[in-house]
């Protein structure tokens, strides 16, 4: 208690130097929380978007399906059983049939995935209702990125070529009936969405599907023979990996800030212990043990971080508040880079994040303050009183 009182008086007495250190440290605080909050917000949004556009409450995969290997597509489709068809009727499952094809926009050739989906589905955000039009061509919807890279517009007509279940080539015209805007690249690039019934006819695969997307309130403990259930933890793993890489990249940035603050405090401590030898000698002459004096100087250094918490919250809280409610606009679309990312990001700050950051910074600052202060215990009090120790 005494050490805190003395340390506080000494810090206030030191004036400008104290405040410079405190401000650097508070910047480190705010940057760490800001950056982490941004990543957490991104992580949350990316996951929510992926769930809303693609994964629902999880997916059943036909046992041979491997999204990383396009060659498995010729094998990875099965006829749906009675139970599955029932659940589809009830709106609990959405069947998706996936195969490979080629489109020829403007005479160019482009290999794509054809994804047939139930045009009456209601719980994925994909605008599948736009597949329900009576036109001569096969209605198809694509994402904005797919449209951009292939210079496609609504109303464009082009040839689609595919191999049916027997390996026989076939072709037909498709027409783009909608271009949708999404932050989820895995429903956008390199693929077209058509009605699953048309797709089954084209492929000669009646009642078949590659994956079944579950509605989020659907009981997922049902086992369908020949199908593997993939839960959200599994499906969202990729996003977790990306976020982890980003946060490692970001750490170096705020580690540099912290290093700056630590250096400034370390330097202040070394200097003050050197300059305040007489004071140290006086403390000892008045009956303090060296350990108590080390304690005062350590607390004094560590207290920078406590002050930094207050200073940081002065500008940090309004900043975080504003960003968490209004969002941060990056003016670019992350899906162009193949990462799920909204144009406007809503940072997500949790109490846990703030508390852990404070604890880590206070502990490290204490250590940085203690290391130079430890030197006091080696000082000879009579030399310290003369102010001559080196």
């Amino acid at each position, binding site marked *: 208690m*005494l050490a805190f009182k003395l340390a506080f008086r*000494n810090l206030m007495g030191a004036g400008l130097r104290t405040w410079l250190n405190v401000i650097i440290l508070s910047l480190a605080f705010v940057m760490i929380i800001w950056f982490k909050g941004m990543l957490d917000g991104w992580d949350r949004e990316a996951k929510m978007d992926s769930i809303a556009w693609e994964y629902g409450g999880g997916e059943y995969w036909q046992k041979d399906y491997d999204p990383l290997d396009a060659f498995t597509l010729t094998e990875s489709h099965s006829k749906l059983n009675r139970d599955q068809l029932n659940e589809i009727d009830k709106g609990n499952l959405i069947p998706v049939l996936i195969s490979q094809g080629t489109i020829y926009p403007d005479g160019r050739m482009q290999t794509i995935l054809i994804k047939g989906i139930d045009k009456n589905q209601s719980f994925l955000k994909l605008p599948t209702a736009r597949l329900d039009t009576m036109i001569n061509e096969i209605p198809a919807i694509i994402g904005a990125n797919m449209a951009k890279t292939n210079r496609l517009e609504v109303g464009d007509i082009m040839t689609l070529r595919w191999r049916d279940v027997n390996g026989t080539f076939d072709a037909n015209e498709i027409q783009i009936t909608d271009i949708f805007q999404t932050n989820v690249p895995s429903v956008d690039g390199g693929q077209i969405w058509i009605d699953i019934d048309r797709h089954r006819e084209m492929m000669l695969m009646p009642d078949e599907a590659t994956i079944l997307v579950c509605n989020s309130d659907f009981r997922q403990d049902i086992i369908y023979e020949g199908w593997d259930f993939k839960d959200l933890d599994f499906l969202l793993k990729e996003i977790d990996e990306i976020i982890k890489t980003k946060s490692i990249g970001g750490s170096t940035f705020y580690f540099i800030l912290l290093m700056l603050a630590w250096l400034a405090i370390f330097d202040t401590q070394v200097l003050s212990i050197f300059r305040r030898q*007489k*004071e140290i000698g006086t403390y000892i002459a*008045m*009956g*303090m043990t060296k350990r108590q004096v080390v304690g005062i100087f350590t607390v004094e250094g560590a207290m920078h971080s406590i002050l930094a918490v207050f200073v940081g919250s002065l500008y940090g809280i309004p900043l975080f508040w504003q960003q968490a409610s209004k969002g941060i606009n990056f003016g670019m679309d992350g899906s162009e880079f193949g990462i799920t990312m909204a144009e406007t990001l809503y940072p997500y700050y949790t109490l846990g994040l703030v508390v852990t950051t404070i604890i880590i910074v206070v502990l490290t600052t204490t250590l940085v303050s203690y290391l130079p202060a430890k030197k006091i215990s080696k000082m000879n*009090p009579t030399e310290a009183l003369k102010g001559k120790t080196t």
Partner: protein
Amino acid sequence: METQNQISINKLSKHFPVGGGKFTALKEINLNFVEGEFSGLVGPSGSGKTTLLNIIGSLDSPSEGEAIVLGRAISKLSTKASAKLRKEELGFIFQSYNLLPVYTVYENVEFPLLLLNMSATERKNAVMEALDWVGLIPKIKSKPPQLSGGESQRVAIARAMVKKPKLVLADEPTANLDAENSFHILETMLKLNKDLKTSFLFATHDEKVIKYLKRKISLADGMVAKDEYISK
């Protein structure tokens, strides 16, 4: 006889390592002090005054022999025990005042009491009393940089006296002061010596101080050259 001594120094020597060899700063000193003395170690620069004072103050320890201060053998004290001795029984006054610059006059004087874990009211009473002794109540809120040398040294005296120690050790307390301020300081200390029975031991070569001493111990080359009681 010996038990009544507040300080008794027996065959005390102090060597400092210098270069490869050693320098003898104090040589076989024998001295005894009783309670309530107003005495001084005098002698030319380098004669060992500060060295002896520091040993008596348990800031340093003898190389040979012993100093028994208030019943404690200095050479045998643990760091904790010597800190306790200084905290509870001793007061120090230095040539350069050694006030804590960021503290007010009040806080400087309060400091030794904080170490003694005294209650707030007890502290307040004691601090005000000590500041009254040295006539500094009007400067209670000032900080050391705003004080004159004489005022600073009076704060230092109040700080040394506030816990009513048995013994005050003062190393060249007047070296930075003019005649008028020196006079004032010595009068104050003399009064406290009389009123509170506090012993004072000076280290000085200032004639102004020497005039006030009731006992003058002359050191020369680390040895006691003369030990005289001066009747006034």
